[in-house]
Structure formats: C-alpha cells, structure tokens
C-alpha cells in the first residue's frame, strides 16, 4: 500500500468521517431525549485518527479499540446497521446487544475489539500479534489507546513485550488532551508521548491527528514495517476531544479558548477544504447526503429493533456448552 492515500481513498475517508460525526451527534441527541442507556463516549473531533488509521490497514489486519471507538468501528468496516444496533443495545447488534458501545467487536472485519477498561486490550493486542508471528502470517494489529491509557502499567508491559519480541503491532495513541477530565500535562511526565518509543526499541513519531493524510501515512508506514517482521511502532496522533468524556460529562474543566481553537481545526472541515478543489461542491454534498442517509437508515432500523429478551441471559456460560456455534477468528 502506498503511504499516500489516493483521491478515491480520501473520498471514502471523508464519507466515513462525516458518518461518524453524524452518528456522534445523533447519539448525543438520543441521550438528551433519554433514549440511550448509560454513558456514551463520543469521538467528535478525533475522526481523522480512527478513520485514517483503519484506512491504512488491510481487511485481515486487526484493530483493538477503546471505550471511544466509533471511528475505529466504522473505519474497520463493521456493518453500520449491526453497529448502531449494538450501540443501542438491540438484539440485531453485532454482539446481540450484550456488549454496548464500549465493547463492540466483529471478528468478520477484524475488530477485536472494544474495551471499557483503559488500556485493557493492549496486552491482548500483543497476544494477537504473537499468533501472527508464530504462524508467519503477514498481519498487523493496530492497537488504539488514549493519552490516558498511555499512563497505565498494562501499556508499558505490552509495549515492552512487543518491542522485545518484534511483534507486528502499531500502537496508536489518540492524544485527545484529556484522561477523563484531567489534562495530559497533569497525567504524563513527558509532553510528547511518542518519545517513550525509544524505551521499547521501536520507532516513535508524532503526527497531526486532525490531518487524515498524516495519520494514514504514519500507520501505513508502521504497518508495512510490522509486515516486514521489523517489529512494532508507536504513533502519537495529536487531536482533541471536542465533546465531553462521555454523555455524562458535567463540564467545567476545559479552557474555552483552547476548545475554540481546536474547533477551528476540525478534521472534517479540513479534509473538506482539501477535497473541494478536486471533487467540487456538489460531489461533496452528495457524499455527505449519502453518509447521512446511510446513518438515518441504520438508526431507524436500530430504534425499531427489539432489545434481546431477558431469557437470553440463560445463554450458556461456556463455549464447551454452546457446541460448535462460536468461531475463533483467524483460526
């Protein structure tokens, strides 16, 4: 794969970014209307990271996600209908409504998967990469984490092992400025998280996380390196969380000037501006309309779908009881 996305790829990335933004906005609206359950972690403003990174991966590559994963899900190709249904806890969801938005997974497209524990999937990503290495498969795991997760012990253990064994992992930090409400500067001893790569014998670089081309290029390069069995990489994508830590956020801790500055650097508006001369206004409007209609269809279907009945709680505890139903991806 070339490190520079072609126009067709950029067009598709733009459509997906718009789709994710509309999804987040609609989820915010549904939350305010009392039609969602529990907190939802929106990724408004961070779409270029998830969409740019996943566009640089192959279908057989894996993504481990976070609690703020909607751009990862859409980017990795989880069908939108089951994705939205899962976010809303419906029987038609990717995981039958058991997972909810933080734990979305879809083995068919290599999303394995979401996680509500900060940093919780990083050691798992290393294990997935070990399987690829042992079997000699040219597959890569892109492990998303936040700047908050970069502070947890599991991140250190996972990165050290990946570096030590030269495992095919791309650690991608979405540095969105906050761990919950606490700014990065109050959480990390270093400002630039990418420099930690040196401690794990892997290359580290910082990119503009609001520039989808930069994210794509960095991930494509890191994935190619991993595929050549040269080991892991660490990428820090600097971005900003435009909404709260979740729909439960009570606010009061952000600097309005900083927020305004980042709103002015919106990754979607930026890509739109770049594509305008190439595609023209009407084509962009058509793309946006397409994304909106696709989302509207998925939302409508999800809202009309039933939640899983309470009796499904009696589903077997173990795979050994469930017979041949469960399939392990990549086996």
């Amino acid at each position, binding site marked *: 794969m070339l490190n520079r996305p072609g126009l067709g790829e950029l067009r598709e990335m733009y459509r997906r970014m718009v789709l994710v933004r509309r999804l987040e906005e609609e989820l915010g609206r549904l939350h305010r209307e009392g039609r969602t359950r529990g907190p939802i972690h929106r990724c408004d403003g961070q779409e270029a990271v998830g969409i740019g990174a996943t566009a640089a991966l192959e279908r057989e590559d894996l993504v481990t996600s976070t609690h703020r994963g909607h751009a990862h899900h859409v980017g990795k190709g989880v069908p939108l209908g089951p994705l939205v249904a899962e976010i809303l806890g419906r029987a038609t969801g990717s995981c039958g409504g058991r*997972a909810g938005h933080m734990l979305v997974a879809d083995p068919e497209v290599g999303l394995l998967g979401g996680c509500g524990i900060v940093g919780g999937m990083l050691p798992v990503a*290393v294990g997935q990469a070990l399987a690829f290495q042992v079997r000699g498969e040219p597959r890569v795991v892109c492990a998303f984490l936040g700047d908050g997760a970069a502070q947890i012990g599991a991140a250190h253990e996972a990165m050290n092992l990946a570096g030590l*064994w030269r495992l095919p992992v791309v650690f991608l930090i979405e540095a969105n400025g906050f761990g919950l409400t606490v700014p990065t500067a109050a959480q990390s001893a270093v400002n630039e998280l990418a420099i930690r790569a040196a401690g794990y014998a892997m290359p580290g670089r910082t990119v503009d996380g609001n520039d989808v081309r930069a994210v794509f290029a960095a991930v494509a390069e890191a994935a190619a390196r991993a595929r050549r069995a040269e080991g892991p990489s660490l990428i820090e994508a600097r971005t900003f969380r435009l909404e709260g830590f979740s729909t439960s956020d009570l606010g009061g801790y952000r600097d309005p000037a900083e927020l305004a500055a980042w709103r002015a650097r919106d990754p979607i508006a930026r890509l739109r501006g770049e594509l305008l001369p190439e595609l023209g206004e009407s084509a962009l409007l058509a793309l946006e309309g397409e994304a909106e209609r696709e989302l509207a269809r998925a939302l409508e279907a999800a809202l009309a779908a039933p939640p899983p009945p309470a009796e499904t709680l009696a589903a077997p505890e173990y795979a050994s009881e469930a017979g041949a139903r469960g399939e392990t991806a990549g086996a």
Partner: protein
Amino acid sequence: MRELRYAEALREALQEEMRRDPAVLVFGEDVAAYGGVFKVTRDLLAEFGPARVRDTPIAEQAICGLAIGAAMMGLRPVAEIMYVDFLPLCLDQLVNQASVLPWIWNGRVRLPFVLRTQGGVGAGAAAQHSKSLEAWVAHVPGLKVVMPATPADAKGLLTAAIRDPDPVVFIEHKALYNTRGPVPEGEHLVPIGPAAVRRPGRDVTLVASSRMVLEALRAAELLAAEGIEAEVIDLRTLRPLDVGTLVASVRRTHRAVVVNEGWRFAGFGAELAATIAEEAFAWLDAPVQRLGAADRPIPYAEPMERASIPDAARIAAAARSCLG
C-alpha cells in the same frame, strides 16, 4: 502402572499436547531455558524450540494478555503465572477481558487458553508466596477453575484443560509437586467438571480440593480407627462445580465437613456450605463444618504457618463434632 511425580505428570501432559497439536505454546517467567521454577516445563524448550516455549519478562498482565490474544487467534497457549499470589497482578486481564469477551461478544470468539499457576502453604515461602486464591477466580463467570490433587489428575486435567474451548485457571500446589502416584501412559484425559469420590464412607462427607484432599484422606484414616467411616470427595474442578456428586454424598452421610486451604471468610468453603444447605438441608443431621485458613496473612515462622491452615487432625475433629 508406572508412578510419576505430580510435576512430571504435568510436564508429560504439556509434552504430549505440544507433540499432538502445533497450536499449543508455553510461555511465562523462567519456563524456557530454566524449565520453570518447579521444573514443570523442563526440557520443553529443547524439544519444541524458542517459538513455542518462551521466557517472558516479569509482566503478569502481558503474560495473561498474550494468552488471551493468542487464543483469540486460534492458538492454544498455556501461560504460567509462577505463584497464585501474582494472579492479582493480572486480574484485570482475567476478570475484565478473558471471562467477559466470549460471552459479551455473543460467542463470536473463543478463548481456549490455560493459565497454570500454583499456590498453597508448604515451602516457608511466606505471605506473598503461600496463599490460596482460588475463590477469587472461581467467583467469575466464564472462567473454569481446576485444582488437581493427584499426579494422574494433574496429567489428565491439564490435558483436558489444553483441549478445552474456554479459559481455564489451572491451580497446582507447591507441596504436591513431589508427591508420587500412578499415572497412565499416553493419552489420559480427566474431564473438567466431575468430582471424584476418593474414599467411600457412610458417616460423614469430607469435601476438599488440591492438597487438602490428602489431609482429608489422612483424617479419614484417623476416623476409621475410631469406627467412623468418612467419605472423601475431591472436587478436582471448582468451577463449574459438580453439585450432583457433592449433594448425593451428603444426602447419604447426613453430615459434611468442607475444607479449603484458602481463607475461611467468604472463601470457597462458604459456597460449598451454602450449596449443601440449599440442596441437602433436610438430609443434614448436623450443621456443616467449614474449615479454611486463619483470617491472617500466611506467616513465615513454621509453627504459625502450620497452624494457619487446616490439617488432618483438625478435619477429623470437625468430623467428630458433626457426629456429636
């Protein structure tokens, strides 16, 4: 039948399964070149090579995560956590990921891995290397918890655990590694789940697991000399629990002593006593006696260490008190 030590029986299971299935990997702290601190993985590196037998850093979260991720991708990892006391270091991986993902993802993945570890008192290893924490994992849906008491079960249950499609926490006992017993040669499977009646008896049921089975059998000998016939049940698997064997025995003997090497308060014995109360209350002639470790850290000094956990004499005394 030829005899093996418990540790050799475990090693034989690993070796045979690694020969049978190239998806089986072994990794953990000091397991490769050194062969494991209890020598359970001795010589595996020489036979299977460094891709399949790996020393890891001292990093329990990574070890457990490796097992989960590799299993998710279709391998059958056997990871070693050197002491069960180190299990808390990877509980997030076990309790928030391994036990959760297969079910929460609606059966779309399987996690066929084994986390081997060992616990218990027996080597003067003090408070951070002598605990019994099986109740911590037996509490968690989605995990299976296995505790072999004999060399034959060590081989048969480990073989079954490696072939099992679910995450299995396999808890050995440091004071059992040198015990000897008959072990079948070649393929030997002991299914996960069923308990074993180690000694039949009609007067009282002694329920135990791991090394406490040996103490219960000694207690049964002491009681037999007094004309009391104790039945000894070896649970073998704590989760899923073989309620049927347990309850059938208590309904016959009308008395039960439950023995666990872990702490008594909120320990595994509490689950056993509650199960007996629910399923066999009308058959009981005496309150269930519950033995466990003293509710203190396991001390180093030998008399204190010895006093901190149940033994044959205390089990026999509890049985006598049931018989009034």
